[in-house]
């Protein structure tokens, strides 16, 4: 926590050292440039970098809500919080739920978005804007607001089951059934995030050289062959990028369970972020920090792994 108050001073423009090789003009420019950056740097250190370090520091202490006014009066407890975390079945459950949410949601979102992008890019001439706006609209909406709407749609006597009953299907009570609650949230997340990836894939598709497609057509390659041998390899950087940002977004899911299920039924939708928030609510600040850092590490690791995997195939 020391970093919070002490750090801003360090980042100020450094006084030119006597031995500095740079010319006076360069020193002047450095001063001017850091002047441009100063407001950002100060806010950045206090409200972003500080808390990132602070969260890690707090996770090794016994910080609770009682220490709020005296943040430096806490005891260092080492890895105790982390050990306790991994002995808490609810925490492990939240990790599992988050993992399932990502593993099911990301490929599904990417697959559907790719199909929509391909259809919009190649298949049709008219009404592209209408389709694009329609598929993208959920992205701009507040998850909280839209989760409330979905909660009502997914009620036992809600719109979805009403629709299913037209075909003689008796739908489950989606959000109250431990088996269906998490898939329902995945479904909603796919619906909400489809548009982002669609736009990213559309941009990526336009960078696929059309000469390659023409050459392949001359050689007699069919649509499917051209898709797997030309489009997919050319899209690899875009696909990688999409996988990373979608995974990072999905790993943090919080609003959906908060509004739709409160983590229930039987912790079936308790996400990692929600677990952290609950611990914060109970006043266990150090514990909450530790749990948030586990999620943070998962995010960093996942990004690294995905880069390794997809990066290697590229060369």
């Amino acid at each position: 926590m020391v970093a919070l108050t002490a750090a801003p001073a360090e980042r100020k423009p450094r006084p030119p050292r006597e031995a500095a090789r740079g010319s006076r003009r360069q020193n002047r420019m450095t001063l001017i440039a850091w002047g441009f950056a100063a407001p950002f740097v100060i806010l950045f250190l206090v409200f972003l970098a500080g808390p990132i370090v602070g969260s890690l520091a707090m996770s090794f202490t016994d910080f609770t809500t009682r220490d709020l006014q005296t943040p430096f009066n806490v005891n260092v407890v080492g890895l105790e919080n982390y050990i306790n975390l991994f002995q808490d079945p609810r925490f492990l459950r939240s990790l599992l739920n988050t993992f399932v949410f990502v593993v099911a949601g990301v490929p599904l979102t990417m697959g559907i978005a790719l199909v929509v992008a391909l259809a919009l890019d190649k298949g049709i001439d008219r009404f592209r804007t209408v389709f694009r706006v329609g598929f993208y609209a959920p992205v701009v909406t507040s998850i909280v607001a839209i989760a409330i709407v979905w909660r009502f749609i997914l009620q036992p006597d809600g719109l979805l089951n009403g629709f299913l009953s037209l075909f003689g299907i008796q739908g489950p009570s989606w959000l109250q059934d431990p088996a269906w609650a998490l898939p329902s949230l995945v479904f909603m997340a796919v619906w909400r995030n489809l548009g982002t990836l669609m736009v990213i894939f559309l941009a990526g598709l336009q960078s696929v050289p059309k000469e390659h497609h023409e050459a392949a057509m001359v050689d007699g390659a069919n649509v499917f062959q051209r898709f797997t041998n030309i489009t997919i390899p050319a899209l690899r950087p875009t696909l990688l990028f999409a996988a990373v940002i979608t995974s990072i977004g999905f790993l943090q899911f919080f609003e959906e369970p908060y509004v739709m299920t409160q983590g229930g039924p039987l912790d079936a939708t308790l996400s990692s972020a929600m677990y952290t928030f609950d611990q914060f609510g109970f006043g266990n600040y150090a514990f909450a920090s530790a749990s948030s850092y586990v999620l943070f590490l998962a995010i960093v690791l996942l990004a690294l792994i995905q880069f390794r995997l997809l990066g290697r195939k590229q060369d």
Partner: protein
Amino acid sequence: MALASEMTAPIAGEAPKRTRSPRGARRQAAGLGRSPRRSERPRWWLYIVLTVGVIAMIIPFVWMILGSFKTTTEIRQYPTEFLPREATFENYVQLFGRLDFATFFMNSIIVAVFVTLGNIVFSSMVGYALAKLEFRGKRLLFGLVLTTLMVPGVVTFVPLFVLTANLGLVNSYPGLILPFLITPLGVFLMRQFMLSLPDDIIEAARIDGASEWRIFLRVIMPLCGPAVATLTILTFLGSWNNFLWPLVVATTEDMYTLPVALALYSVGQNAAQYGLMMAGAVVVVVPVLIVFVLLQRYFVQGIALTGIK
């Protein structure tokens, strides 16, 4: 996390290089427009599939708007009918009468306006330094921006709350606004855009004896219209929909923003008030949807410029 630079590269950096014509580059940056290669004939069945898809995407919005005009008795009956039988404004009357949604709406606006202004001013300033000035520590500064591009709010909110509490800013506008006045994403966006501006005009202004501040204000900023528009939309939207931090820091009703109020009411005693909650969702979502339909070009541009929504 030194990955962000690589992550954003496919969209922000590499993609434009591959296009041949400036027209193509612009179309690509916006992620829209028709592809010039229309080698295959449009297929009618694709229209059907896409239309069904779009209807599935849009139905929750339609359901929300219709539901907000339904009476409580009509909602209780089963099976629910799609259209309201007798449309009523009662839900909206309650929303702005019994519940204080006017206040929540104003809070959301106030926070979003300040957050957006802060981001425009501060991101432009750093963006200029990073894009057009040579100085010691530049790589370090840009590295910091890139590595923090995707740090989730859930990692920082606990210490941030301790800090806010010690500054005496819990449950206040500054407490809601200050942590979001800058975003690494905003800096990244402005830098990327400013890199594309020619150096000649800056050199010319320097030879004329203009100071860097004057060049920034009079030469660079007037050219940054599109980037500022995109940044405005992205940050306003981000702030408008932001949930976790306002939920933590707003402790009494008079400081709630719209998503916080909506979420807390929806799990409280009004939870069963279907029509009322739908009306609340309409108040949060519909203004954004209208702005989106009108300015959709800039929304899409934001994704293309930064790769992140």
